[in-house]
């Protein structure tokens, strides 16, 4: 790819004029999107940052609002809840999605593999409130089809199961059920990109399927696994729907269980404080932003240059 300046210099005058005309139309074509990007990407971020550093009179308060948030006993509690949840969720998503993708890639052929991927992806249709409620039924010993299993663990009624120590695992199962399929498809796609020659050569050398997966395939899609882990982590920090729905239906979950719920309570709960809520949002935003910037600029997974 030659630099823009060089390309321009080599071009005849006529084309250069065409290029300038193309410039103006380009702005027209991106106008709608840029307005939306400013209004619902940049502006809310700027507004949140503005609120986070001021009080309700718009007076600058430095890091005062951040101190309010971090000093709140509910903040540490929700962060600990989050840590437990993310740990389970991340291990599950990385280990199981890679395992299932490898199995599908190496042991299931053609049409069958499309079918399996579709089966794993199907619960994604219930993302959000629906999946949360479905899993509440699955975990309710009264109606669950796996009730005997629940009883075996001593969970004889819903209240006994929905206990603080079980919540991270429950939410991780809910999130995994909905989200795993998409990642299995992506991991499968990455495995498919590993050249057949490499696989064939290894097979001829007598490498067992297990060694093939561990020493050849998984290292070759390492980049994608890191990508998945980072996105799953960033997504995990945002958990809101599951604890909110489970809590509002059963009254058994703290209303500030996750940081996003705490931000919601800061904004709308008793003694609402939009500025503190914004400060917490900015903290969460910063986490997402840092990971996004690292991924986009360092991973090399994204094309930012159109092919000429």
């Amino acid at each position, binding site marked *: 790819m030659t630099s823009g300046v060089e390309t321009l210099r080599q071009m005849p005058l006529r*084309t250069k004029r*065409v290029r300038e005309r*193309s*410039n*103006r*139309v*380009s702005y027209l*074509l*991106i106008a*709608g*999107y840029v307005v*939306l990007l400013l*209004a*619902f*990407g940049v*502006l*809310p971020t700027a*507004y*949140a940052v503005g609120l986070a550093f001021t009080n309700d009179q718009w007076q600058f308060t430095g890091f005062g609002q951040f101190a309010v948030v971090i000093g709140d006993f509910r903040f540490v509690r929700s962060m600990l809840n989050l840590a437990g949840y993310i740990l389970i969720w991340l291990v599950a998503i990385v280990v199981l999605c890679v395992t299932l993708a490898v*199995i599908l890639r190496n042991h299931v052929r053609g049409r069958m593999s*499309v079918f399996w*991927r579709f*089966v*794993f*992806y*199907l619960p*994604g*249709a*219930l993302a*959000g*409130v*629906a999946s949360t*409620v*479905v899993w*509440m*039924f699955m975990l309710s010993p009264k109606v669950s*089809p796996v*009730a005997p299993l629940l009883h075996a663990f001593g969970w004889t009624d819903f209240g006994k199961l929905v206990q603080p120590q079980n919540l991270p695992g429950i939410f991780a199962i809910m999130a995994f*059920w909905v989200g795993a*399929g*998409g*990642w299995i*498809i992506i991991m499968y796609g990455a495995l498919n990109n590993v050249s057949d020659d490499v696989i064939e050569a290894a097979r001829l050398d007598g490498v067992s399927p297990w060694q093939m997966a561990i020493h050849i395939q998984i290292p070759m899609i390492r980049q994608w696994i890191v990508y998945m882990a980072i*996105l799953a982590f960033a*997504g995990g*920090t*945002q958990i*809101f*729907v599951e604890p909110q*729905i489970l809590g509002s*239906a*059963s009254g058994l979950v703290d209303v500030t269980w996750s940081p*996003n719920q705490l*931000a919601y309570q800061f*904004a709308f709960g008793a003694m609402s404080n*939009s500025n503190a809520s914004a400060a917490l949002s900015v903290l969460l*935003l910063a986490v*997402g932003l840092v990971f996004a910037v690292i991924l*986009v600029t360092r991973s090399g997974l994204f094309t930012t240059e*159109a092919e000429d």
Partner: protein
Amino acid sequence: MQNSLDMAAVTRRPASTRYAHLIGRGAVWAILIAFAVFFVLPMVWLLLAPTKSAQSLEHDFPFAFGSLARVAEAWQHLIGFQDGAIYRWFGNSAIYAFGGLALTLICSVPAGYALALTRFRGRKVLLMVTLIVMIMPATTLVIPMFLELSAMKLIGNPLALILPFAFFPFGVYLTFIYFSTSLQRSTLEAARIDGASELQIFFKIALPLARPIIVLVAFFNFVGNWQNYFLPFLVMPASGTQPIQVGLSQLLSSSTAFNPGGTANLGIDAPELTLAILLATVPVLVLFLFAQRSLVAGMFAGGTKG
């Protein structure tokens, strides 16, 4: 020659390796079936639940089929809830999801094209920002967005959902990738020399080629809009303006299924809840079935947003 020798060696493996191979195969299928059960069983249960009464859900075999009369009964209870609120919820969901979708296509397809095939100042920056916003989890911005929309006095207005739904950087990125790999810049250059205007090039050359990517962007955008809960939960406080997802959570908190404090005389119990969930899922499920193939391809191309 080398090959056939190796093949012979492979087929004449000692018995112990062959057993290991069999055990390995067994383990593989055991894992696959276990996960299929995990992913599918809850959906099968959900499909059957509205055919039964709350009592038989508790006492009968979980995968038995009840009767269609039971489904009709549950439906009667559902439409009895807040004078047929469920119709309004579905209507609202359709308005918000399709409104957002229309605006998404109008804005993101031209933008993706311009980013891929034209050169303008700030192009690189716009692409970077798009990628970053696309990867950042959308939930983070919901509360700031609410504060902003509330400052703009848009709370309760359909635009408070349609406009944020129309902001869809993932769609711009997908279109960008599609155009930059499927159209040559030299083709466009030739059209320019022949005197076609830039807009003509976009409408006559690029757009007719964009059908597959439009389908894909429309799918992801619609599903996201339809399933969104957090933003509508905040910006649509009145039941009459809420979409189905928020409606579901209302049904849930009014039901006796999980909360002994729920109001029994509203008639909302497990069969009604599961029926409402099924109905809310049908539009997305239908899309899944139709878009299956391009979906699997698109997920990998875009690489994000499950």
